[in-house]
């Protein structure tokens, strides 16, 4: 039988108004902006191999983002979404998970996917919508997905993945898998109804899910001050009766430690956790907007000084795990590898026209087969009008 478990409130005899800002949630930080650990802190146990993997992934993503923004400007790809400035949030959190944990991204978490092992070639194939893209060239650039790497394919509509994460995690719990689901979203997407639905259901159903909000200050042009009036996203977790952590999203060690604790709570205690990672979107929302139209250079510079990559690099240098020369050389190598992969991927043709009707259902319907046949006949008649696929229908 269901029971009414809401605690009976204490009684007061005069009107008691709780201030909307009564709950102030502090931000967990281990490294200062120069990469120096705060006095007396306990750093997470990260061995050299893992630290270097996290660092090289950050370097790779920085290079990939910068290169692909340029490629879009050159007209080589149609669109790009960068994660500049937010690399620590995605890579630090992915590093704290088990490989078999599910990750559901929004679209600014290429760092997590790279950490899981998505190759430069796989990135490029998706960005160029070519025949080797796992998504068969169907979605816009950056809508990655990879079942082998437990990374759910990205969907553009905002926040839809949040209640899905609750459902996925419920399945993981039901199977007693010892696994969890981590779902990313931005502070803008947290305004969507799906955010409320997903977090409330997770709390009620006690699922092993980690709701990872990248609070980067902007939803396209809309600053957080026009998005919400409360103290960010974190206090909402408390409203759902959910364990909540606010972390410096530009401090990869703090992100790692926070996610590690969230994972423990999720998997060992079936407690969903909300993490709010405070960061800044250094680039535009996408290559389709120009941030100079809605924010100041000074504001950008202030955040550039808190660069997560520089911070972690300084930490590793001080630890003696990297030296300047090797780090620079590695970055140069990555640049060359990215450029080579780009050149290769843009030569690969688009998927065969037959792919257009696959995966609408498990097998194409008779109607779809008929539509495909008509389409192929049409393309054969006008091969010059459909140059990307006409070769394949001869």
């Amino acid at each position: 039988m269901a029971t009414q478990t809401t605690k009976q409130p204490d009684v007061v005899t005069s009107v008691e108004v709780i201030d909307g800002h009564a709950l102030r949630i502090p931000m967990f930080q281990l490294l200062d902006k120069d990469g120096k650990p705060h006095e007396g802190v306990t750093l997470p146990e990260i061995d050299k191999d893992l630290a270097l993997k996290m660092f090289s992934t950050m370097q790779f993503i920085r290079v990939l983002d910068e290169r692909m923004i340029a490629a879009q400007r050159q007209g080589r790809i149609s669109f790009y979404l960068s994660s500049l400035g937010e690399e620590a949030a995605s890579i630090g959190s992915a590093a704290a998970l088990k490989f078999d944990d599910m990750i559901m991204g929004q679209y600014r978490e290429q760092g997590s996917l790279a950490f899981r092992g998505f190759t430069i070639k796989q990135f490029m194939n998706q960005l160029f919508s070519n025949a080797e893209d796992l998504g068969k060239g169907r979605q816009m650039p950056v809508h990655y997905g990879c079942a082998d790497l437990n990374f759910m394919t990205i969907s553009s509509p905002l926040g839809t993945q949040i209640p899905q994460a609750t459902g996925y995690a419920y399945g993981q719990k039901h199977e007693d898998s010892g696994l969890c689901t981590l779902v990313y979203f931005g502070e803008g997407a947290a305004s969507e109804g799906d955010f409320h639905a997903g977090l409330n259901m997770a709390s009620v159903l006690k699922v092993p899910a980690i709701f990872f909000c990248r609070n980067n200050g902007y939803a396209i042009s809309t600053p957080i001050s026009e998005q919400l009036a409360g103290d960010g996203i974190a206090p909402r977790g408390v409203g759902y009766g959910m364990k909540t952590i606010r972390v410096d999203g530009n401090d990869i060690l703090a992100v790692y430690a926070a996610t590690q604790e969230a994972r423990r709570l999720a998997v060992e205690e079936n407690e969903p956790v909300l993490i709010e990672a405070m960061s800044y979107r250094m680039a535009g929302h996408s290559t389709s907007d120009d941030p100079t139209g809605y924010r100041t250079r000074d504001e950008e510079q202030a955040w550039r000084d808190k660069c997560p990559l520089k911070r972690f690099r300084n930490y590793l240098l001080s630890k003696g795990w990297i030296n300047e020369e090797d780090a620079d050389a590695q970055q140069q190598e990555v640049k060359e590898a990215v450029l080579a992969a780009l050149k290769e991927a843009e030569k690969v043709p688009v998927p065969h026209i037959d792919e257009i009707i696959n995966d609408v259902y498990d097998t194409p319907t008779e109607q779809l087969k008929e539509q495909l046949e008509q389409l192929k006949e049409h393309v054969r008649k006008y091969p010059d009008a459909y140059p990307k696929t006409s070769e394949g229908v001869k």
Partner: protein
Amino acid sequence: MAKMNLLQAINSALDVAMAKNDKVTVFGEDVGHFGGVFRATSGLQEKYGRSRCFNTPLVEQGIIGFANGLASQGGLPVAEIQFGDYIFPAFDQIVNETAKFRYRSGNEFDVGGLTIRTPYGGGIHGGHYHSQSPEAYFAHTPGLKIVIPRNPYEAKGLLLSAIFDPNPVLFMEPKRMYRAAVGEVPEEEYTIPLGKAEVVKEGSDITLVGWGAQIEVIEKAAELAEKDGVSCEIIDLRSILPWDADTVAESVMKTGRLVISQEAPHTMAFGSEVAATIQEKAFLYLESPIARVSGLDTPYPLAHEKEYMADHLKTYEAIKRSLNY
């Protein structure tokens, strides 16, 4: 008159409406200082203040729920949904609330002041979620009006009618034409009636029907057909709910043939309604089956966008098949 593209014409309509009536407000994601992701609302916040043109939080169901409330209070809200593909969280507010507000209350309350603007359609490398043509979902909802302009002149006149129409209107803007379509547009107020189709071009051999960006496609197809000596009559429906069946039927009674060209996936697209109605109204005049040229019955693809689309060549082939039936 001034040369305007479709975005400028929308902006001009909003400007005229806001200047005319203080109750007109414009809101949605990024529409404030930034002027919207397509810049349709550029300069309006500066001109009319933040209380009349403002950013909302990122929540489509909230935007339309808020707009319903504001309209029921007597306002004239013009709510923007950034892409038609993102309108679905607001589906409940539109279908169950906007459309039924008047009917369910016995006309005690209504949201007739509401206009919802949203860009729709493909051809911009937008993949699944920046390309769809979802008009048919809404055309299945009594109580809504649905308007889709084809060019800047039409856009301004129809939008002004929509804003001041005493019924809620879903105004769908062909984003492919935003900057591509340029034409002469009066700077002052003018209106074009809702629910009335326009014969864009007169002809005698075949009737071609479409709406929005598809009119450009149809015109290109007609040019090809004219070279074969075929005289095409082109009709822009302008409104698909309510729609002007009489103008189409009258044309088909003259030409005996009908091709409907539409961007949306084939099955249950609005062309199905046109075909069914016209065979009822003009059955004995038809000399060949009514043909529909549509998108494929698949999600809107990226790499195969060109192949997917109901383009001018597919429309031209349909014209030929109809004539050679």
